[in-house]
């Protein structure tokens, strides 16, 4: 028979190209607007090596690193959200549901309380995130059975514990340190200067997850059905858990705990593009990056020269959108 081996379901590149284009436009917007607006001609000049010193400095040291960090962080959070939703087979799961951001926050705030510098705060946040991950994983696995409900419950309770510690740390802190701490808790990209790591992790994570996409589609139908269809369920679940945690930890370390990107973006995409994880995972990375880049641009200019934490914008956008989705889904 002719054409029997032709791919019957072509990979949906179109959707990804559209999202990539939107991401590019969002990045261009992010470097163009601000206290000193730059036109398309200025941008072109700077990108081709021209422009005056102020313009070059503005773009290469301030706006471009921040836009890149925002995109990578948003991409990481949305990817982690999409993964967690499949892993827990729960549409309400987000990257923070397992207490990871709480652990990171305790690490970061503790370091701030001790007067540590930015590097140490980041390192401490990362350590706190990993500690929380190991704690939840170990406790949920304890007796050998590992159901999504058990993992979810363990995570939520651990998160509540971190919440109490966070409140305690805030209460104990001297007044002059509080604004920095609150900004960190709401998510803030003002201090994100080194987006390289976040980008590296994002690219590697998407590339590592793509070949597992079809297995994740099968896993979404329950572990027994997945095992019967040849999926090695336990190793797959473990790698998804580890990867989603690592990705979230990098995002939280870059920008603090930015809410709602991980919950909203995968859901919006599922409504439009369907449920094939082979498409949803890379699409989440692109759309999450675009959303956070735009939100951070808004956070910079809405009350300029005052900057808002980007978490305020994502939450203000996220809460009504999510409630609308939930209302409509009934």
């Amino acid at each position, binding site marked *: 028979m002719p054409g029997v081996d032709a791919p019957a379901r072509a990979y949906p590149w179109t959707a990804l190209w559209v999202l990539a284009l939107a991401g590019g436009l969002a990045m261009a917007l992010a470097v163009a607007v601000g206290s000193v607006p730059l036109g398309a001609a200025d941008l072109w000049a700077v990108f081709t090596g021209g422009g005056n010193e102020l313009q070059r400095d503005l773009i290469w040291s301030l706006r471009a690193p921040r836009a890149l960090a925002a995109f990578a962080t948003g991409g990481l959070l949305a990817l982690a959200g999409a993964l967690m939703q499949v892993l827990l087979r729960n549409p309400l799961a987000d990257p923070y549901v397992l207490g990871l951001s709480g652990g990171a926050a305790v690490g970061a705030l503790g370091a701030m309380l001790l007067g540590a510098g930015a590097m140490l705060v980041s390192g401490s946040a990362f350590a706190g995130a990993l500690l929380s991950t190991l704690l939840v994983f170990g406790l949920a696995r304890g007796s050998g059975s590992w159901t999504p409900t058990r993992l979810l419950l363990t995570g939520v309770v651990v998160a509540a514990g971190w919440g109490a510690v966070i409140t305690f740390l805030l209460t104990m802190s001297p007044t002059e340190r509080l604004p920095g701490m609150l900004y960190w808790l709401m998510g803030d990209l003002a201090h994100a200067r080194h987006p390289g790591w976040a980008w590296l992790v994002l690219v590697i994570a998407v590339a590592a997850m793509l070949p597992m996409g079809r297995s994740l589609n099968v896993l979404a139908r329950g572990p027994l059905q997945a095992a019967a269809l040849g999926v090695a369920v336990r190793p797959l679940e473990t790698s998804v858990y580890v990867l989603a945690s690592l990705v979230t930890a990098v995002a939280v370390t870059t920008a603090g705990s930015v809410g709602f990107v991980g919950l909203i973006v995968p859901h919006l995409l599922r409504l439009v593009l369907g449920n094939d994880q*082979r498409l949803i995972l890379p699409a989440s990375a692109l759309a999450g990056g675009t959303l956070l880049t735009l939100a951070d641009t808004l956070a910079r200019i809405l009350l300029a020269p005052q900057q808002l934490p980007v978490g305020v914008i994502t939450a203000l956008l996220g809460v009504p959108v999510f409630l609308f989705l939930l209302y409509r889904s009934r």
Partner: protein
Amino acid sequence: MSVLETRELIIDVPGRVSGRALSLRIEPGQRWGILGPNGAGKTTLLHTLAGLRAPRSGQVLLDGKPLSQWRRRQVAQRLAVVFQERQDGFPATVLETALIGRHPFLPPWRMETAADLEQARNALRLLDLSHLEQRLVSTLSGGERQRLALATALAQQPALWLADEPTNHLDLHHQVAVMRLLAQQSQQGAGLCLCLHDLNLAARWCDRALLLYPDGELCHGPADAMLIPEALERLYRQSLIVTEVNGTRVFLPG
């Protein structure tokens, strides 16, 4: 053709003493019916045979090699399981659901080919679901979902079917259609292992029977010899009326 074999197998039913060990071979083309009252361990046995659940002791062998030494993917290329209960994770269409039966045959990077799509569509056609191809699974009736589960297994083209109450939720016409389809599969060389509650379906379509008692006792053999009123009345603790229609035994609760 694959052969599934158990050696001194004792399934792990929580809170039950071990009972009798099971040693049997499911050969190509054989049609086994597993019968027993609620809670006798039919589903547990089926899951153990599929390697989805560890036995308390003993072994399950596929083509002479212990199931635990096969990769899951290789097992799934030979053996299809139809579950009694199903979860709908995220919304999916009927065609997408049938297509996941091709999952064990596709390498990670490959999208489904035209041949896979053809097999999935063919399975849907044989189970009278073609007209529902683009419907969401969550909108189907119980019987339609049951047929979809069978279609997914059919798309897997298994050498061995492990089906937990394949006629569950089906109307009379579809019960017969499904049993006829499974019988065709066995004529083409597939082994069948079906948990059944309907004695009449078992008597009409199965050539071997395995009776599981709630206390862990069991016996198996040719269907003619096993499906006799004395054994079945003891199995279900229910008196039976037995008659014969067109050469097939018919059982009615007495």
